[in-house]
């Protein structure tokens, strides 16, 4: 069961966290771009290091970590947009 997830995932059971690009940050909230190209607002209280341009992992509307490493470069290309620093 998915709660609307197109891949049929259960977000809680599936240990699902989606990568998103931070566009702008205002305190505990950030405007982000998703891998599907949409934009939304998520909570970033738990990732103080995240700034515009950072890639974060979002679970249930809350960022739980930041992404790093080589694999991230491709995602950064995918999500590359003008960011507000």
């Amino acid at each position: 069961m998915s709660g609307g997830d197109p891949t049929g995932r259960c977000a809680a059971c599936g240990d699902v966290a989606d990568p998103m690009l931070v566009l702008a940050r205002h305190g505990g909230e950030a405007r982000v771009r998703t891998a599907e190209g949409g934009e939304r607002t998520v909570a970033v209280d738990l990732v103080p290091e995240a700034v515009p341009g950072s890639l974060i992992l979002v679970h249930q509307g809350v960022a739980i970590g930041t992404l790093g490493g080589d694999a991230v470069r491709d995602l950064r290309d995918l999500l590359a947009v003008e960011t507000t620093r």
Partner: protein
Amino acid sequence: MKYVDEFRDGDTIRALADEIRRLADPGRTYRIMEICGGHTHAIFRFGLHQLLPANIELVHGPGCPVCVLPMGRMDAGLAMAEREDLIFTAFGDMMRVPGSAGSPLESKARGADVRMVYSPLDALRIAEEHPDRPVMFFAIGFETTAPSTAVTLLRARERGVANFFVFCNHVLVTPAILAILEMDDLRLDAFIGPGHVSTVIGCEPYRFIAEDFGRPLVVSGFEPVDLMQSIAMILRQMNEGRAEIENQYGRAVPWNGNPVAKAALDLVFEERETFEWRGLGGIPRSAWRLREAFAAFDAERTIGVHGPTFPDPVEAQCGEVLKGALEPTECRLFGKGCTPERPVGALMVSSEGACAARYRYADLTVGATDA
């Protein structure tokens, strides 16, 4: 999608499958438990089990919080939902989970105010929009999900929201692994560790699995290449007589996890002495409850847990499947009395449940792309 395509590349997967076949010693068996429901889902979705030699067996673990929640906890939450003025909120994944008197969706059909939310922050927003009504969030999930509940409670306290309550059912991964490792009939050789749980808690908490029980664990990502690489890493460890904690998912999992998230969890939650897991029984210190400082938001302390509770249906053999003693298809109800459309046992409820995943993808042949 570019980000995932390289982790679903057929050539890479086939090369890893060749490597696994080369590493697999035909003179021994490898029983590997993937703890996380997301891994179970990916294994069936991409048919990865069909790429492995017969002497590598993947055992589907208890990493599906919906699956391991006893029916009594569902009953308790739904009893709260029956309160005339209360707004019951939960993730969409919870809406069809059966209690003894039906699911949240069925409660809604009977007139209860049941609302699906994407995030606990949405439930808090509903509470702020309806200050004259209690709003209860049915919190469920492992250490990946608990931080979102913690952030929500910290914001609720900061804003002085007095009508927001959490029914806390958050559970912990490592006590469940310990319970499995201490079973008399344990036949597991190694573990594939959960990815995003580990983003939060890091890799250190798994150390006892290698040091005290001599089993390797590899924290893994969720794409086919991730999982195949993790299996190869486990085989290398076993062939070399090593038992270590390794991290295949370094792009998302720092060795020590997320210290800010861990601090938030520690601020809001404390361990329960014990908690009942469907199919596994009571496991010490395996779940969280709200700390006294957040008692005013605790649905169990304020609204109270009332109503009849019933034991889980005995005809479904979820427990044996969770422990790896039975394959999903070996359950007497699989595909007959118990289907994703009409689940009896918990493992058929969530798409990450071992039985639902097996049922959904049973007829798929090997496929590396599914984007």
